């Protein structure tokens, strides 16, 4: 049932509101017109009754007052209204066993009027009975010579019969519908604006605030939204500043420790200490890079994406002298010019390549020429991959999949979030999926 309603209902608030209002309006119109029609029925019936009774009375008078030998000719001459037939017979046309005429039908002819007439006009006897929707009325003439038999059948009442009726209905409905559509669109526009503002806020915390005008409720909602945006902004700002301050303050002690390490006599211990410190530094740098999100500050320039891919792979290979250089493969065009922020893009790709090399042992970049206005770049490895349910979760900051592998592969859990931030700032994105043959594939999409 619910499913059916959901299927039938239009999807937008505006359309739903308009639909409800229209249905309600049509119901109200139908009710109003029905009341109007019922009034017409009463009027029509009253008019008809008056007409019928006066014709019946008139006919009776004319027949009674006419000379007895002229009565037959009179009856054939006289112009009778539709639904009224009259004959002069020896016998009444009301037969025994006919159901009695109900009072509303009887009211059409008002026999009491006849019975109240002066004695020379009063019928000797009146019989009434129903036969096949027709009122049979038999009146014995005052001289008792014959019966005036009348068959009255009321013309059907036609309360809906009116040319203006349908036109009025259509015109009113159309006018109301266009008013409703216009008003509903106007009324739901703030909702659309709110959705748009919320979307913009999701993409950029510093998106411009909503205008706080319009009807009171809308202005209140806009104000509440702006207040919320301001709080989010402040929250993000505080967090960013805190991360930046921590990162910044850690530089001095790390520098000191690196200097101190130079005074250690034990070469092995010194090398280990330096490598620990490098790791700390990498974490601090990643945290700072994430907190500052400085991709936005770098100007966008034309750059060679193919050369960038090679650089990232070569640097990854240089940093791993123990890994076979063949593990880092670039497959794609010799040149591919895109617009972008070179340092930021390099960081994004380097993060993906580093992950591939650390977890998958190898890193291959497959760069495809632009198609349909976008560029696809795949960073593949031969590692264990990532369970599908975690493939989105790893883009959350500080989220690390492996509980504790060795520290070399550890990292701080910011590589993927930083890469995604940067690529999204370029109008692209990065998603992960496992390759059918094993290994992980990071799909980077960039606008061409």
């Amino acid at each position: 049932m619910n499913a059916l309603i959901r299927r039938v209902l239009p999807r937008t608030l505006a359309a739903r509101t308009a639909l409800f209002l229209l249905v309600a309006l049509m119901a109200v119109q139908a009710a109003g017109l029905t009341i109007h029609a019922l009034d017409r029925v009463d009027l029509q019936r009253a008019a008809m009754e008056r007409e019928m009774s006066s014709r019946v009375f008139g006919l009776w008078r004319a027949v009674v007052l006419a000379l007895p030998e002229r009565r037959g000719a009179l009856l054939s001459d006289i112009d009778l209204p539709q639904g009224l037939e009259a004959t002069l017979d020896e016998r009444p046309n009301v037969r025994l066993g006919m159901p009695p005429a109900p009072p509303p039908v009887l009211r059409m002819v008002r026999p009491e009027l006849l019975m109240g007439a002066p004695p020379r006009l009063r019928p000797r006897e009146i019989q009434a009975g129903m036969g096949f929707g027709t009122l049979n009325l038999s009146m014995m003439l005052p001289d008792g010579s014959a019966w005036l038999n009348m068959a009255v059948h009321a013309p059907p009442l036609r309360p809906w019969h009116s040319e203006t009726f349908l036109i009025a209905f259509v015109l009113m409905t159309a006018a109301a519908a266009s008013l409703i559509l216009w008003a509903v669109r106007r009324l739901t526009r703030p909702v659309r604006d709110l959705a748009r503002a919320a979307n913009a806020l999701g993409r950029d915390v510093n998106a411009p605030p909503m205008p706080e005008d319009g009807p009171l409720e809308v202005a209140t909602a806009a104000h509440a939204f702006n207040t919320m945006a301001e709080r989010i902004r402040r929250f993000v700002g505080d967090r960013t500043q805190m991360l930046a301050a921590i990162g910044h303050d850690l530089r001095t002690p790390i520098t000191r420790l690196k200097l101190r390490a130079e005074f250690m006599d034990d070469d092995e211990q010194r090398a280990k200490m330096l490598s620990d410190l490098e790791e700390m530094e990498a974490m601090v740098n990643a945290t700072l890079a994430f907190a500052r999100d400085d991709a936005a500050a770098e100007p966008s320039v034309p750059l060679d994406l193919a050369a960038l891919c090679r650089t990232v792979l070569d640097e990854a290979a240089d940093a791993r002298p123990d890994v076979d250089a063949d593990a880092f493969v670039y497959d794609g065009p010799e040149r591919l010019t895109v617009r972008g922020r070179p340092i930021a893009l390099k960081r994004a790709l380097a993060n993906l390549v580093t992950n591939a090399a650390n977890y998958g042992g190898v890193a291959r970049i497959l760069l495809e020429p632009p198609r349909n206005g976008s560029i696809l770049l795949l960073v593949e490895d031969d590692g264990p991959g990532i369970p599908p349910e975690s493939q989105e979760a790893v883009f959350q900051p500080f989220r690390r999949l492996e509980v504790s592998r060795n520290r070399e592969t550890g990292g701080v859990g910011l590589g993927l979030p930083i890469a995604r931030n940067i690529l999204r700032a370029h109008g692209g994105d990065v998603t992960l999926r496992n390759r059918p043959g094993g290994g992980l594939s990071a799909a980077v999409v960039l606008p061409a």
Partner: protein
Amino acid sequence: MEPAPHILVVDDDREIRELLARFLEKQGFRVTTAREAREARRAWPLGRYHIVVLDLMMPGESGLDFARWLRGQSDVPIVMLTAMGEETDRIVGLELGADDYVAKPFNPRELLARIRAVMRRAHGEGARRDPLPSAIRFGGWVLEPQRRRLLNPDGVEVSLTGGEYELLTVLVERPNRVLTRDMLMDLLRGRQAGPFDRAIDVAVSRLRRKLEDDGRNPSLIKTVRGGGYVLAADVERAA
């Protein structure tokens, strides 16, 4: 024997100052330290310094202001200590005439390598030292040392690895001169921390690829029989 080179270290952190002084003294330098720009200005006339190691982030007068003042006094080589991400400061510093920079937290040995390289460039080769040029043009390509980037003839940025960049710098500084592998190794070791561990040939072939130089028939970086390379291009420098 030449007297030990004299270094002025300007850094606001006392520990770093003292540790750095000890470290550099151990490496055979004479070191004077200053806590901030004011102290450095006082120390400046008292010694004949071969090089200044300058922290950019200091309380009071900034490192950039001090570098500007220092440039007005002398063309002593300056190595800046910058924090990562202070991209604009770094570029301004290089434009002001600083010779190199090391990002904090730095590896002391890398700093030492940079100091030696800068001193060799400044005092070695018997040449007066030019400030880092903003652009070096060769064969249609543009190398921008202050921004550490390479633009192709269409103005498209072509990224280089650290090794490729250093190799290209060495080559464009000595155009049309044959450099043997040993010379290149020597020149590159002065620039990079740690050994330049990939073979020169690999680096050259990578660089050729980036420069769209056909490996079999190179026109920019030519192979010289007997083991050497030469950058065959006219080089034009813009300050």
